């Protein structure tokens, strides 16, 4: 299988403000969020990233999405460096996170055209793809309604569509089903499987073990910014569930029972 994403020793530290230092109960001002993280993801695969809050999952995804730069190490999407050629990477990658919001003044229809323009998608391709995506997510019904007036589920569907207007090879989803009702969550989950079937690479960060077990091909477990374990679901969950495995690893790492 073709290696679409190759992460090599990604490292990222943040300088904490005094307020953050207090909140984190930390003696040092520098916090290492991600430490020499390496993994790969392949064509037609859903790769799950599991870890507790503050483990460094979101920081890793933001580095892959070129929103922030690593202190050291690099990641390659189809051989293109996120550090050296971030603009090229952005054209090949879609990123969905709750941090990113759609401008509430605009309608899904306008936003689709705007992001298509930003990705320089030719008009004919854009219209065809818009029709398909809007039909799939039921956006047709509210395409001309301002985003401010949409429900959480409608907004999430719109955000998903905006993140894939350019038909990227690799799509990064950070907690895509958070806060969604079961029906909308299923629509999203089905779409992830559909992307996989299309040969796309999906990187999925989530807390939901059942979701990872259900749709991910491989999983990486991150604790304290380090990749503790990485492999296929089958390999990792031979004699115990993913949830049990995760808690065992967490207890070993932290030296405390959960």
């Amino acid at each position: 299988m073709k290696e679409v994403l190759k992460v090599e020793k990604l490292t990222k530290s943040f300088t904490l403000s005094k307020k953050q230092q207090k909140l984190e109960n930390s003696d040092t001002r520098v916090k290492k969020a991600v430490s020499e993280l390496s993994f790969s993801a392949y064509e037609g695969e859903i790769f799950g990233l599991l870890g507790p809050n503050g483990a460094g999952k979101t920081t890793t995804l933001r580095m892959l999405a070129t929103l922030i730069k690593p202190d050291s190490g690099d990641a390659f999407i189809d051989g293109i460096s996120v550090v050296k050629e971030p603009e090229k990477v952005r054209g090949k990658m879609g990123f969905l996170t709750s941090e990113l919001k759609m401008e509430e003044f605009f309608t899904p229809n306008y936003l689709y055209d705007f992001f298509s323009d930003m990705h320089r998608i030719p008009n004919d391709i854009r219209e065809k793809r818009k029709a398909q995506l809007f039909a799939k997510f039921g956006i047709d019904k509210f395409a001309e309604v301002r985003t401010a007036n949409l429900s959480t589920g409608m907004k999430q569907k719109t955000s998903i569509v905006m993140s894939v207007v350019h038909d990227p090879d690799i799509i990064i989803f950070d907690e895509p089903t958070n806060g969604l009702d079961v029906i909308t969550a299923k629509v999203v989950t089905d779409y992830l499987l559909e992307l996989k079937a299309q040969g796309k690479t999906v990187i999925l960060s989530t807390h939901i073990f059942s979701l990872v077990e259900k749709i991910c091909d491989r999983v990486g477990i991150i604790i304290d910014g380090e990749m503790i374990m990485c492999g296929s679901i089958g390999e990792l969950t031979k004699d115990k569930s993913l949830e049990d495995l995760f808690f065992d690893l967490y207890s070993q790492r932290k030296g405390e029972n959960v």
Partner: protein
Amino acid sequence: MKNGAFVIFRKEMARFLGDKRLFFTTVILPGLMIFVMYNIMGTSLSDMVKDATDKEYDTYVVNMSSVAAETIETSGFSVHEIAVGESDSVTEKLKSKEADLLVVFPEDFDSVLANYSGKSEDVPAVEVYYNSANMSSSAAYSKITLVLDRVEQSVSNVFDINPDTENNVYDLATDEDTTGTMFASILPVLLLILIYSSCMAVAPESIAGEKERGTFAAMLLTPVPRGQIALGKVLALSLMALMGGISSCVGTILSMPALMGDTSEGSSGMSMSLTGYSAADYAGLIIIILSTVILFITIISVLSAYAKTVKEAATLVLPVMLIVMFAGFSSMYSSEAKAEIYWYLIPVLNSVQSLIGIFSRSADMLHIAVTVCMNIIVSALGMLLLRHMFNSEKIMFAR
């Protein structure tokens, strides 16, 4: 396929023009408010002047002088001659604002004047009582002192200055010169403040607002270079601010005659008109305003990009407003543009000096060119800084 800067520009304009409330408050309202406010102020001032001219002041006089009587009676004072003993009751009336003035001439005022030797110890004193808390009494006091001054001059007349008071033949300035001087001292500061206010109304919301709402990051995830995002934003915001600025300028210029008291309707003010300016003056005005708008927008955009929230951005741009006002007020102390070229190398001050030159009809094309070039250079540097800031995760994703 379109250039990224154009796509951003179009999106910003769609947001601005599509939001009727935002468009109304940014473009229509400032001009309308200025027009209405200045007209109300102008009308009130005219009414006050008219009242002061037309009103007959309730004036009580003790020992009326035959020398001054005619002048006082024909100058808008309703005179009641009273005896010395009635003075106290009149002062009570003054205190209760029922009378405007009490003028007390010395008993032998006329004979002292007739025998005046020129020595200061022989000068008789006229006492004028008034109530400064009563506007009518205050105005009457100002008027009576002028009238008595005139009487004094007519008594000891040695020479006249400009005796032809009917026809204004001594002031050789044309109406255009007078208007130009007036505009040069008032309009630069007004224009700068109005333009800066327009820029403040749109830029923080578009940059700090998008950062705060999390919509900026979505743009940063696209392949459009950050420099193009900065350029598209600055150009769109400049156009919006320009619309607001033009609206304010139109409101100001249309209300100027009412504010200053235009002679065209027979009042006592001066004729205020912009028709005397040449096409070159207007062209200079437009490019100075345009380059100043771009400069202001760039400065406010940089400050807004640095801020985490719209509120913080508003706090950061306020001190710059004070600098702009301070620079603008320099026009009020001089109606002539500076000749030295270095004035035109200092941003903001250069715009003020160029505007003074244009409004006083003494614009130097070199000065205008240097001003525009400096504004563009500083704006370009600001845009580079903005691009750098859009690339900085510490600035764009600071918490």
